[in-house]
């Protein structure tokens, strides 16, 4: 097929689905709204909803369409998790650094995700509300140690102060691209993109001039 260039090709658009998981009130919605709209607790919002948001990125010359799926965090909806995270490329597991309990919930999610999706999914564990450092109840060492032990990356963020959020999403996108490229390589030379597309990744060859048409935002700075 024409995509024989495999992982090395440069005119591609990646489409990724990322789910947000975590207890209610840890700041999931605040994180995406900050990232996609650069807003926090804004009462004059023009946004109709903050449950499904998208962002276009340009990472080292490759275009990425990111779809971020918010999930209902209430305990009574916990069992619905698998319906939400099916076919996702990444998961952002958020806890509140001032809330020990919310960190335990993250651990449960990690176990479940690994069990259901194996290593196909990129996991990010996010300690939010670091502006409330004085009230911290989850130690940095414990959280980072845990993340490493389960093959996840750990980030500290504050939606309020807009700290650590760009890094979080950029890093995640890069990792998802690596995973997608590895998958492409595994398929071998000239393999079709079919199966990955059916999992939610789409690798698309574009005409060279198309790449310049869609400006996108470059956040690698």
């Amino acid at each position, binding site marked *: *097929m*024409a*995509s024989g260039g495999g992982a090395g090709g440069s005119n591609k*658009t990646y*489409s*990724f*689905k990322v789910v947000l998981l975590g207890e*209610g009130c840890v700041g*999931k*919605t605040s994180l995406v*709204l900050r990232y996609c709209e650069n807003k926090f607790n804004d*009462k004059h*919002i023009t*946004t*109709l*909803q*903050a*449950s*499904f948001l*998208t962002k276009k990125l340009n990472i080292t010359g490759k275009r990425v*369409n990111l*779809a971020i*799926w*918010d*999930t*209902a*965090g*209430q305990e*009574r*909806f916990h*069992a*619905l998790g698998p*319906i*939400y995270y*099916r*076919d996702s490329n990444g998961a952002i597991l958020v806890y509140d650094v001032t809330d020990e309990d919310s960190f335990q919930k993250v651990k449960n999610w990690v176990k479940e995700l690994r069990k259901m999706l194996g290593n196909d999914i990129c996991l990010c564990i996010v300690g939010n509300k670091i502006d409330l450092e004085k009230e911290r109840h989850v130690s940095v060492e414990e959280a980072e140690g845990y993340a490493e032990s389960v093959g996840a990356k750990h980030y500290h963020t504050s939606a309020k102060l807009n700290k650590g959020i760009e890094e979080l999403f950029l890093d995640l996108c890069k990792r998802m691209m690596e995973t997608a490229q590895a998958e492409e390589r595994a*398929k*071998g030379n*000239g*393999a*079709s*993109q*079919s*199966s990955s*597309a*059916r*999992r*939610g990744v*789409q690798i*698309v*060859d*574009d*005409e060279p001039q*198309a790449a310049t048409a869609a400006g996108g935002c470059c956040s690698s700075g």
Partner: protein
Amino acid sequence: MTHRSERRGIHVDQSELLCTKGCGFYGNVAWHGLCSKCWREENSRAGHKQIQEDHALAERLQREEEAAYASSQQGASQPQPKPQHAIAPFSKFEERKTKEKSRKVHTMSKFFTTSAKTPPKKVPAEAQSTSSPSASRRPVETDRATQEFISFLKTLKPGREIFKQCRAFTEDMAYKRDLAADEMSEYVQDFYQNLSDRLHTHFKGSSERVESVMDEVERYMMTRLYEGTFCPETTDDENKDLAIQKRIRALHWVTIEMLCVPVDENIPEVSDNVVKAITDVIEMDSKRVPRDKLTCITRCSKHIFNAIKTTKKEAASADDFLPTLIYIVLKANPPRLQSNIQYITRFCNPSRLMSGEDGYYFTNLCCAVAFIEKLDGQSLNLSAEEFDLYMSGQVSPERCKAVPSSAEPAALSQMNKSLDLLTGLGARQERVMEGARRLESDLIDWRDGVQHKVQDVLERFPLETQPPPSSTASSSAIDADNVENDLLPPPLQPQLFAG
């Protein structure tokens, strides 16, 4: 407040949605108001006609295609890529990825290649002339879909190639009605996949462009394939529909407060949005194309967001959206909910479902249904006992608050007894109705059976119209056996006078 919300809402009489034969299943316009079962029964005699019809359809599509491209074919000799190339590596990979799927993929590649090569089928002469009533049943909709598809494709370089592929595939699917639902789904999904891969690689389409072409492909194909693929008889989709419908009816007592729904229906604008959301989710059932069904869900969701935003003065998050969607589904009790979900899952373009916005709302609908199926006291912050009382219809939410369970006044206990009695009676009536319905359907079966037999006999022993020669005596007709007929003068002929 609870009263209000219960009274309001759409008045879609459930009976209007039911099978016109009264069997209790949902009917469908496409089946002339019958359910799939009754429709099949009605149709079984015309079973072989279906095949002829498919032939006729194939023939007509071929003619349409020729007509559509007859004029615009200067570049007819441009090389057309062979589908096998796109498939061979794909099937290899699939094999590695999921063992269970590989079998189907193999069949698929065979299927796809042959279908792509199959020359237009010769239609038996008699099939063309049959203007059976079932032929006119084929909705105008499908013809319009074909016309629109062709005019859409005319603007594309590989338009002809796309139409050929889709027509061949649709035609072949028509012969695969007895396949299991997930096999049908697999075929269709593999077709989508192969076609979009080729659009990407051979025709160098941008992803947006390819998506829009694939939307039209889905529209064309699924408009045609709807009858055989929606709630197919090989599945128990229909029973699941009935189960969730019953379940939702049993949950009529669930209030906005129990679900923690963040909308205030006292605000006119909000209640207006609630009504619209209910209408949209009900409307889903009337669409034939998966994408159109998705659009209904998306519209429903937007109305929900409006309701939430008007109430809360902030953008809705998933925490707000899901409970509200659950509430809307409970209010709407959308017809054939499971069939619709299954149909979309099986036959929608996968990229729309998996990461697109429509896909997000659809996923939430799936979550809402899963929640409703599993829902218990805990999910509504009720004790198990309270939940059971509501479910059995002994208590309704408003009354429950007023009644202290310890010292029940005599009048109340009397009332509860009466209620119990009523529930019992209701159940009995339900059973009687059930029996009556079964009897009715048995009768219909019996009648059909007898008709069939009579028909059979009639065909095997055609009626002799000549009377037996010996029965002259009993004949009372004046002209009967008038042997002298030949001797009578010929009847007078009118003569023309030139005037």
